[in-house]
């Protein structure tokens, strides 16, 4: 199995899927000869041509609205939003429209569209190239939301998204693109949407997390072995629907829950995970349901020390582990 970065896995998955299925097209700003600003579609226009790799005008609402139109007319579009911070103009077409196509037409129409969105911080992106935007999508019935953190998951979940008959939002943490490497089988495979994965088994407490924070959590878990704390790390992987059974099972088993995310905490994924645990695992818990996130300020300052202070880190996670384990 060759080792790949996340961005390589994304690119090769799109390439393989486009070879497999003619109805798949890419749309987005600079996805053509530029190959996307992160090079996710590097070379694809050469192989598939301008008809299937479409450099769009600079207008996110139409990128998603046009994609939706092609999707209800026989295509399987993959729309790229250049940075998550620029998805807001497209909310109406995604949350307002695409999510309700199947339900609102009594199943007569479906919208098999994928929207890839590079998100997240720790890249010196300041207020407008660092945002986490998962909350609204994860809240919206009719959408699926995946957030792979490893090259292996990036491939399997992106393939599932592309093959889904309904809209799927694919959140790719841009800091993982080149940072995170891993083995990726060359043959095709899919990972079911809606299934979490235990990335590190443990017995004393569970960290629930996703995205870049998965890697920080794994580091913190490793560091915690020094204090003989055996930490389980559960990668949510899909944010809608959350894998409630996997979450409840792990929390009940270890009895202690630490939820770590990069997004600001109020009304977020970590809130929902805490709520699931508070409802389903109440009698099995032996410590408060703990959340670790950044402060409730606009994410995130551009200057380097403040950005670092804003982001959760392996050290901060370790401190939270230690505190919770002591209870």
């Amino acid at each position, binding site marked *: 199995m060759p080792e790949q970065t996340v961005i390589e896995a994304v690119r090769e998955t799109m390439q393989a899927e486009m070879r497999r299925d003619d109805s798949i097209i890419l749309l987005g700003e600079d996805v053509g000869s530029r190959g996307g600003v992160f090079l996710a579609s590097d070379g694809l226009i050469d192989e598939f041509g301008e008809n299937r790799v479409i450099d769009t005008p600079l207008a996110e609402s139409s990128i998603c609205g046009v994609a939706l*139109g092609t999707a209800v007319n026989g*295509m399987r579009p993959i729309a790229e939003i250049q940075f998550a911070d620029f998805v807001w103009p497209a909310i109406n077409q995604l949350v307002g429209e695409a999510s309700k196509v199947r339900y609102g037409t009594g199943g007569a129409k479906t919208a098999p569209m994928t929207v890839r969105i590079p998100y997240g911080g720790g890249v010196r992106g300041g207020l407008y190239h660092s945002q986490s935007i998962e909350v609204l999508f994860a809240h919206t019935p009719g959408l699926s939301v995946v957030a792979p953190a490893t090259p292996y998951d990036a491939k399997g979940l992106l393939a599932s998204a592309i093959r889904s008959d309904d809209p799927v939002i694919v959140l790719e943490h841009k800091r993982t693109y080149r940072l995170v490497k891993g083995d990726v089988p060359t043959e095709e495979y899919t990972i079911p949407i*809606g299934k979490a994965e235990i990335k590190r088994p443990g017995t004393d407490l569970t960290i629930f997390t996703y995205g870049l924070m998965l890697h920080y959590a794994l580091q913190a878990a490793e560091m915690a072995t020094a204090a003989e704390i055996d930490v389980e790390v559960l990668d949510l992987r899909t944010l809608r629907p959350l894998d409630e059974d996997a979450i409840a099972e792990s929390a009940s088993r270890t009895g202690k829950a630490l939820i770590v995310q990069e997004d600001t905490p109020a009304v977020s994924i970590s809130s929902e995970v805490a709520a699931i645990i508070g409802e389903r695992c109440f009698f099995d818990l032996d410590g408060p349901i703990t959340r670790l996130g950044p402060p409730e300020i606009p994410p995130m300052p551009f200057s380097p020390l403040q950005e670092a202070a804003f982001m959760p880190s392996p050290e901060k996670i370790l401190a939270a582990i230690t505190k919770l384990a002591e209870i």
Partner: protein
Amino acid sequence: MVLSRYLDERVWLLNRQGKAAIAASAQGHEATQVACIEATDPSKDHYLIYYRQFTAMLALGTEPEEMLRGFLAKETEPMSAAKQFPLHGAHPRVDLFNFSNVIATQLPQAAGVALADKLRGSDAVTVVYFGDGASSQGDTHEAMNFAGVHKLPVIFFCENNRYAISVPLEKQMGIESVASRATGYGFPGVQVDGTDVIAVHEATSAAVERARAGDGPTLIEASVERLLPHTTDDDHTRYRSAEDIAHMSERDPLRITSDVLKRRDLLTEYEDDEIHSTAKKRVNVATDTVDAEPYPGVETMFDHILNDSDRNAEVFRNA
């Protein structure tokens, strides 16, 4: 047209009786809708409508019973299984749809529908309808711009009744004609009198021909009157002068069309009466049928949702 008018009136009556939750009306827009559809090919073209396309839907073969099932939210409602407002959802037989009430979202979608046809080499045309108010939305601009760049086979059809609910045209735009914007996207814009079936038919035919030939989009603007208030929830005497309201009837497309036909000896008084009485009867029959039908039961509320997990969430939460 006549059938549309009677059915439209009936729907408002059903609203006043407390049976229909809400209704918009096509009264005043009938001629333009019929003439436009006539110039297209429902066996292969696509239609993205908005809530005022009452007549267009009938012209595309929706049965009065089917329409009424929408207004009365009955069990076998064909567009959305009564999940949505009347006339929203997707048509059971032609490729006509209206995903939402949200103004102008259909325009980028239409560009996408047309793009798919273009990529596949199909010669189908996409017709998308919108109002003068909708012209102000960002989505309208983005859609026309995209369609202009890619020379898509799409017809942007604006039914300009000079009002968006209460907001008159001069507060909607600094110009007189929506059609004039087409040059800013690189395709032709045409203004037609929407009470003139011939003119609308000709303009649409030309646009269809252009689109099928691969020459790209056309923007058509048909000027019409909205004879009734915006919807059954509205009262237009709050914002239109009595004079303005009185004068509207001069532009009633039904009267104008029948006058023209009679003047050209294409319609006799007798035939006209026949049409009217047949339409009335048709509406009565449909009303009686649908009125007696049941509402959808609770069981089907979970049909057509995304996936098992969401359903599980529901079962879990409300167990």
